[in-house]
């Protein structure tokens, strides 16, 4: 059963000029967002990206960028409350295990 979340929101970008075709992104992505298409890596299922950041983290050429974080309402609530206390951009982190 395929699960799909909101469309056209994710921050994933791939710079094909920097890509060295090592294929790491296709291995680490848990949603099969990347695919080797002939002689280039392409973003196939952009809307399936959950912004976990594994691809960008493991791209030796730094060709992939994404604002990584947790898609968790609790973590975002915490971030809202923290921000109302003091301003400043911090990582949105969950506090569960």
């Amino acid at each position: 059963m395929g699960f799909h979340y909101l469309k056209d929101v994710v921050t994933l970008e791939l710079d094909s000029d920097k890509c060295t075709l090592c294929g790491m992104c296709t291995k680490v992505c848990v949603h099969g967002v990347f695919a080797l298409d002939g002689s280039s890596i392409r973003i196939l299922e952009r809307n399936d990206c959950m912004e976990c950041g594994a691809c960008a983290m493991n791209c030796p050429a730094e060709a992939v960028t994404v604002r990584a974080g947790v898609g968790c309402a609790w973590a975002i609530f915490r971030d809202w409350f923290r921000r109302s206390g003091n301003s400043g951009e911090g990582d949105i982190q969950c506090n569960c295990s």
Partner: protein
Amino acid sequence: METSIGRVARISTHMGLRDKLGGCRVRWGIRRMHYNVPAGLYAVGHPTPESPVLVTANYKLSFDLLRRELSGRDLWLLVLETFGINVWCAAGKGTFGTAELINRVQKVQLDKLVKHRTIILPQLGASGVAAHKVKKGTGFKVKYGPIRANDLPLFLSNGLKASEENRRIQFTLRDRLILTPVELVGAWKPSLIILLLIFVIGGLSGQDFSLQGALSRSLSPALIYLGALLMGSFVTPILLPWIPGRAFSLKGAQIGFLWALIVSLPLASTWSVGSIIALFLIAPAIAAYFAMNFTGCSTFTSLSGVQKEMRIAVPVIILCTVAGGVALMLDKFL
């Protein structure tokens, strides 16, 4: 067992009753943040300098699920210090990360223990670990294994190759079911306050305050609240793929609406218009709120997506709840 780098503890691949009970306990959120094993190197079976090295987190539930799959095998297990947090979440926080891995490999002198230069990590650890930096820092090549521990035996006997299917995250009925107890337990504290509030309002809304009056008037609102809570944090997660819409709050609101419908059928004739309106505003709002909180348990929601959902859903939930309260008050005073 004795090795070239000193004594290494050998672990069993058998899950005892205590391990099973412990797993059950943390699934219910009881002392979940205090369930870890010491970080470091462990032996499974009778490993040699040629045996593979698996890396995992020190959450005991993760550790147990992994060792359970390794019976009859000889290998090394390198446990990172993730402070009792599972691989995926720890990777997100960076504790299951490049620095800790490099540090731990050096600390246990892995290069002296094994002859090969490959370490196997769970795929879900990839969001915290940069494989190319580990290679640079330790000389060890990181191979990402399958997502689930029970696909590891196949990966190990298949020349360290994982199939496409084993690299895709699932969110099966079983996965969702196993995650709902923690949601329910997490909802207890705010729920106690809300139930107390319902009781107080029930008591004050009578002609004169009596314990019996308060109890009888707050019984049905309390049951409606608990039902809506169950709809949002249990029924919605279970039915998740079959409920229309993409936003979790929208899915929850529909189930909450159904709950209001079920409740209203026997009550409609005896309830006032204001109460019925309040029921249909508040029950979906409560279910939507709890369903929205399940995003963190899911395996496919993005930060940007949940932020967008919440920017719309949170004001709507608050508005519906307040409007429901106003309907109840107008009912009382008009």
